């Protein structure tokens, strides 16, 4: 349900990038969204073209990178790749672990296209 609000936030930030590079259109927006971000990539993909219609991002691709969930044990130091609802150390079983990655929710980059070249 909140994916539309997130799309609008993405569009505002992509528009800022495009505005800083005149005569350009946005061709791709690359996101990094971890399984623990609370954002569903497939819902975002469905919502993005609708939200982007009529903006500088109309027709742009939305690329979403999904990192695994990885934790580091605070007791034995083991790094484990885990499920989002089971953040336990594989070696010693403790829940006293620190999240290394998996809750990212950010825009990594925006691909722009110079319009002069586009019209060649």
């Amino acid at each position, binding site marked *: 349900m909140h994916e539309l609000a*997130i799309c609008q936030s993405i569009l505002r930030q992509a528009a800022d990038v495009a505005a800083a590079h005149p005569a350009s259109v946005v061709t791709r927006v690359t996101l990094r969204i971890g399984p623990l971000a*609370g954002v569903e990539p497939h819902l975002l993909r469905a919502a993005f073209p609708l939200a982007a219609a009529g903006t500088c991002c109309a027709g742009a691709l939305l690329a979403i990178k999904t990192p695994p969930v990885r934790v580091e044990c605070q007791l034995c130091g083991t790094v484990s790749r885990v499920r989002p*609802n089971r953040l336990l150390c594989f070696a010693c079983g403790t*829940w006293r672990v620190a999240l290394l990655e998996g809750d990212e929710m950010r825009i*990594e980059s925006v691909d722009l*296209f110079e319009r002069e070249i*586009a019209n060649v």
Partner: protein
Amino acid sequence: MCDVCGCATATGHVHVAGAILHTEHGRNVEVMQALLRGNDQQAAHNRAHFNAAGVLVVNLMSSPGAGKTSLLEATIRALRGRLKIAVIEGDLETDNDARRIRGAGAQAVQITTGSACHLDAAMVHAALHTLALRDVDILFIENVGNLVCPASFDLGQHRNVVLLSVTEGDDKPQKYPVMFRAADLLAITKTDLTAAVGDFQVLRALRHFRHLANPGPMLEVSARTGAGMAAWLGWLAAEREAGRPAAARRQVD
């Protein structure tokens, strides 16, 4: 083959606004910003307001019907004469909850979100300017009843409290890991109904909560009988005492 223009390769070019753009002419601009940057900035602004006024702000989140408003009514009555409480109420429709809060003796502002499934920092900002913040010790934000969306939006709060009533399943933390990972305190509510429900096991709920690597405390409370209220009020007092640590938010990169 490209489905749009029929050229031999589907990669290396994109179609934008009727033009074919060959991506070797494009440029990649690194951004590295939070997805909800605007909301995060607004939340930081809210937090600055709260800190300047010396108010502890607690965001209450749960499923609909887990007993957020009842817990607040009992809290306001218990703290009457000791601490000044205000509440921002988020609901899709009606101001029923704000009227209940005022009936219990606290300031309340109702935000009706229409169909929006969560509160965001801008809504809270609009509401906080209708409150006399200088006259408040603890501000509760009662979020929209929902175990998904509210977890993603920082409001400027200092602490998140997630309620889990015994009439729900004790596996809720396993089903909604993002929400329960965000909890600074897990409150098991409606404990007076535990025997009637039969199969809710508090220790199982705690185990699922710990499996999210969340070290936060869990307490059991019944707003109806008052059981566990002392521990809840003690936690609030301790958090107030501990000051208002900046940005409770883990996520900001």
